[in-house]
C-alpha cells in the first residue's frame, strides 16, 4: 500500500525549514517584477500623454485598448494620471521614486570621468546602491539587473541546446578582463566628454531599449549590442558577458569585495556532490569555499544543495578552505587513514 512507513514520516518531520533555500524563488520574483516594471512604465507613460491631451476620442482602436488596460491598472492608485504617475520614472540605470532619485554607481563614476568634476547632487543618488553593495556585495547583478533576467533565461536555453546535442561554448577567460573594460570605459568617457561607460552596460541598455521600443517607436543601436552579448554567452562562454566583460559588474565586485553578508559552506553537512559548482552562473567554487568578490549572493547554490550545507553568514571575508565535506567519501577515507595512522 502507499501508506508511508514510519521511517519516511520521520524523515519528513526531521527536515527543518531552511529559509535561505527559498530565496532563489524570491530572487526570480524580484527579477520578474523589475523587468515587468521596465515594460509597464513606458506603457503608463503613453497612457499619461493620452490623458494629458484629453484625446480619448481621437485614439485609434488599438490605442483605446492600451488606454483602457492602463487605466484599469493605474486607477486604484492615482486620481490624476497625467500628474500622479510621474511619481515613478526611469529604469535601473537611474530612476526616481516620489522625488527620491537612485542611480547606478557606474553612472556616477562615469559621470565623474566624463566631466572630470564632482557634482554632488547627482553623486549622492548613488549612495544607497553603494552602501547596499558594501553590505550585500554584487547583489544587483543577481537580484535586480534586468539583463540578468534575460541572461539566465539565455543560459537555460543554452543548456537545452546542449541537451539537444548542439554544441554550445563553455570557454573560460580571466575574470579580471572586466576590470579592464571598466577602466577603458572610464578613460573613453574622460576623453570623449560623454558618459560612454553606459553604452556597453546591459542593464542601462535594456532600460533604454525597452522604452525606445514601446514609446519611441523603434529599437536603438543598444539592442544589436545586447543581442551580440546573448550570442557571445551561447557560442563562447556561459554567462560570458557578466563574468568577463561587464563594466558595471566589475565596479560592483570591487565595491562588494569586503561585503558583510556572504554565503559560506558548512563542511560538516557537505557531501562533495559539487552541484553548487555546476549551478553557479559565475563559475565560482562553493565546493572549495571559493566565493570571492565575484559572488552575487544569488543563492542558486543554496537552493540546489541537497544537504543544506550552504548558508548565509556575516563576515567580511570568505572562510579559508575547509577541506572535503564530512558526508563525502574523501573525508571518510581521510578519517580512516588518520585512524589507522593513530592505531599504528
Amino acid at each position, binding site marked *: 500500500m502507499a501508506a508511508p512507513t514510519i521511517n519516511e514520516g520521520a524523515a519528513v518531520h526531521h527536515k527543518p525549514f531552511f529559509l535561505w533555500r527559498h530565496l532563489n524563488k524570491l530572487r526570480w520574483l524580484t527579477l520578474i517584477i523589475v523587468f515587468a516594471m521596465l515594460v509597464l512604465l513606458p506603457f503608463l507613460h503613453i497612457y499619461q500623454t493620452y490623458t494629458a491631451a484629453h484625446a480619448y476620442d481621437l485614439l485609434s482602436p488599438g490605442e483605446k485598448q492600451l488606454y483602457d488596460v492602463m487605466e484599469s491598472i493605474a486607477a486604484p492608485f492615482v486620481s490624476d494620471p497625467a500628474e500622479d504617475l*510621474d511619481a515613478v520614472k*526611469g529604469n535601473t540605470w537611474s530612476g526616481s521614486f516620489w522625488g527620491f532619485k537612485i542611480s547606478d554607481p557606474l553612472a556616477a563614476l562615469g*559621470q565623474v570621468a*566624463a566631466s572630470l568634476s564632482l557634482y554632488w547632487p*547627482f553623486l549622492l543618488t548613488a549612495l544607497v546602491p553603494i552602501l547596499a553593495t558594501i553590505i550585500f556585495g554584487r547583489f544587483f547583478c543577481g537580484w535586480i539587473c534586468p539583463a540578468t533576467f534575460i541572461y539566465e533565461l539565455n543560459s537555460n536555453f543554452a543548456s537545452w541546446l546542449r541537451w539537444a546535442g548542439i554544441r554550445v561554448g563553455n570557454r573560460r577567460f580571466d575574470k579580471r578582463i572586466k576590470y579592464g573594460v571598466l577602466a577603458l570605459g572610464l578613460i*573613453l568617457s574622460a576623453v*570623449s566628454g*560623454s558618459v560612454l561607460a553606459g553604452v556597453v552596460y546591459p542593464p542601462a541598455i535594456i532600460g533604454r531599449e525597452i522604452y525606445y521600443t514601446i514609446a519611441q517607436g523603434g529599437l536603438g*543601436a543598444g539592442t544589436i549590442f545586447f543581442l551580440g552579448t546573448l550570442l557571445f554567452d551561447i557560442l563562447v562562454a556561459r554567462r560570458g558577458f557578466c563574468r568577463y566583460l561587464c563594466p558595471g559588474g566589475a565596479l560592483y565586485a570591487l565595491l562588494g569585495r569586503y561585503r558583510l553578508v556572504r554565503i559560506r559552506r558548512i563542511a560538516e553537512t557537505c557531501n562533495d556532490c559539487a552541484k553548487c559548482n555546476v549551478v553557479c552562473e559565475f563559475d565560482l567554487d562553493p565546493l572549495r569555499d571559493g566565493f570571492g568578490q565575484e559572488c552575487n549572493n544569488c543563492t542558486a547554490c543554496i537552493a540546489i544543495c541537497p544537504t543544506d550545507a550552504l548558508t548565509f553568514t556575516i563576515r567580511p571575508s570568505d572562510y579559508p578552505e575547509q577541506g572535503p565535506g564530512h558526508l563525502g567519501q574523501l573525508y571518510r577515507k581521510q578519517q580512516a587513514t588518520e585512524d589507522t595512522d593513530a592505531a599504528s
Partner: protein
Amino acid sequence: MERRTFLQALVASAVAAAAPSTAALAASRSSLRYLRPPGALQEQEFLEHCIHCGQCGEICPNRCINYFGMENGLGSIDTPYIIPREQGCILCMKCGEVCPTDAITEIERDFEAILSGVDMGHARVDESLCLSFQGKTCGVCYRACPLPDVAIYVGRLEQPHVTDECVGCGLCERSCIQLPQAIRVFPTRA
C-alpha cells in the same frame, strides 16, 4: 561575439572618441537642426552631465523628446533632442525636475523663470514663405506660441515678428501650415 571582435570594436570607438571632440563634430553638422530640452546646459557641458537614462523623455507629456542613435556622433548617443517640426516643447518643465544629473537644469514652471532660464533656440520668420507676408492673413504661429505678445507679436495682416524673448520651444514651427515651414527655430547651441 568573439572577444577579439569586441575588443576591436572598443578600440575603434576609442579612436572615434579621441578624434577632436565628438561634440564639436556634432555642432558642425548644420543639417541636423535639433533642440536640447528646455533648461539644458551648453552642449559640451550637457554631454558631460547626461548619463543617457532616458527619464526626460519618459516624463514628457507631449512626447517631443527623442533620442539620438549614432547619427550625431558617438558622444551624443542616447541623448535627448527635440525636432520642433515633429513635436514642439510645451514648457511643462518636468524634464528638468526628473533629470538626476541636472544636465537639464530644474526651472520652475513660471513665466519669469522660463523667460530668464530657458534658451533652447530662437525662431526666425522667412518672409518669402510666410502667408501673412504674402497678403494671406494667417497668424497660426502667434496663436500657437505659449508666450504670445512677449516672444512673438503680430502686425498688419497678422504678420509675425519674433522678439528677443523667444525661448525656442518650437510650437510655432510645429503649427506652421506652410511647407516648407515659414517660421523655424534655430538652436542657440555654442
